[in-house]
């Protein structure tokens, strides 16, 4: 697909309005790459004036910081801020709640201040403005969908309604898990757990959480975080439900239901 790169845009005299921050999962994880492509396809269809950093993007440092490696976090933050400030970037959208939280809340004190928006809020805005139009009777209309809250989108940034509004726009039947919104249970990946074995316990967190999602009877578990997506997908496999239940990002749901051509 055709995705504009910031440096090339600048070289040809253009300054894109919006930076799409892809993140490490969105760039390299095979499953998350599909989410990235879905979101980019929406931006392309709406002819949004955006670009990605491409090879100039680096890890925000979030997993290092949560693990306790403050030095490495600062190192990554300074390098990224240099690039972002160098291009005079004002507005950033990202599909990763961890990148979102770091860019929005942790970069300002290191000299990087931008308007940062998560794709859940961004998609909601585009729907509200009437720019994204959904197909009548789309693939997910009438389907039971449950939404798994990401900790770094929900509790850390109080974004609970935007992803739900996006799902409502699909005309889907939203069913809530017992523990949802501010009481939502973590998928188990945060705090750099994604990058190590879980500590000893009676069960794995993602298995517990997925069972709760399956209990709702939903045929789609919607997420708005590539790490939650991985954890819930593994949980669904663990329950041998991958034939009946899909784990999909809200960007994938929207991309599949848009009528805009």
């Amino acid at each position: 697909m055709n995705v504009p790169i910031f440096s090339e845009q600048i070289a040809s005299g253009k300054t894109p309005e919006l930076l799409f921050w892809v993140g490490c999962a969105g760039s390299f994880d095979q499953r998350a790459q599909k989410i990235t492509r879905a979101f980019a396809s929406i931006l392309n269809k709406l002819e949004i004036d955006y670009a990605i950093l491409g090879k100039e993007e680096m890890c925000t440092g979030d997993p290092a910081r949560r693990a306790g490696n403050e030095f490495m976090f600062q190192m990554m933050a300074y390098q990224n801020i240099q690039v972002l400030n160098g291009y005079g970037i004002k507005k950033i959208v990202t599909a990763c709640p961890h990148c979102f939280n770091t860019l929005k809340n942790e970069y300002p004190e290191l000299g990087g201040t931008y308007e940062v928006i998560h794709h859940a809020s961004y998609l909601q805005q585009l729907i509200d403005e009437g720019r994204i139009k959904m197909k009548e009777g789309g693939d997910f209309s009438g389907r039971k969908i449950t939404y798994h809250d990401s900790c770094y989108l929900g509790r850390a940034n109080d974004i609970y309604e935007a992803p739900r509004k996006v799902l409502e726009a699909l005309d889907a039947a939203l069913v809530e898990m017992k523990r949802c919104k501010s009481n939502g249970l973590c998928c188990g990946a945060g705090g750099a757990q994604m990058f190590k074995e879980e500590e000893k316990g009676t069960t794995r967190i993602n298995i517990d959480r997925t069972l709760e999602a399956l209990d709702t009877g939903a045929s789609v578990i919607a997420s708005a975080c590539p790490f939650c997506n991985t954890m819930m997908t593994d949980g669904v496999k663990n329950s041998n439900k991958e034939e009946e239940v899909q784990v999909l990002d809200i960007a994938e749901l929207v991309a599949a239901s848009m009528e805009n051509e």
Partner: protein
Amino acid sequence: MKFGAKDVFDLSWKSLLDAYSCTECGRCSTACPANQTGKLLSPRKIMMDTRDRLEAVGKNIKANGEFKDDGKNLLSHITVEELRACTTCNACVEECPVSISPLDIILEMRRALIMEDSNAPQEWNGMFSNIENNFAPWKFSPEDRADWVKG
């Protein structure tokens, strides 16, 4: 320069006050994903351990006029396994009726483990070196960062 917290002296005033104001109601641990799946971590215990250590330090100062090294610190109460189990999900903070943050203490202690003692699980060391060399927590070449557009 010292990073993170090995003992109560290194914690913020807010964390110390938190330790004294905890009512031990346990709501944090009921909301904690690690605790609820049988991990050793209990945010309630983090607060109780911090208070126990604070009280021991207080007695020590009273008896000696100043703090005399007793060969102990917060890690004598809180194990590395407990600290490693936290997903930083913030549920304990959200749930506490008196706005205590067990997570602040956990993160400060994790910082000391890594920055002062280089005490990390192998996988985390791998993740750190990937970030340092490939600018991503996985072993992929930074040259391929935009290859998703080809899919």
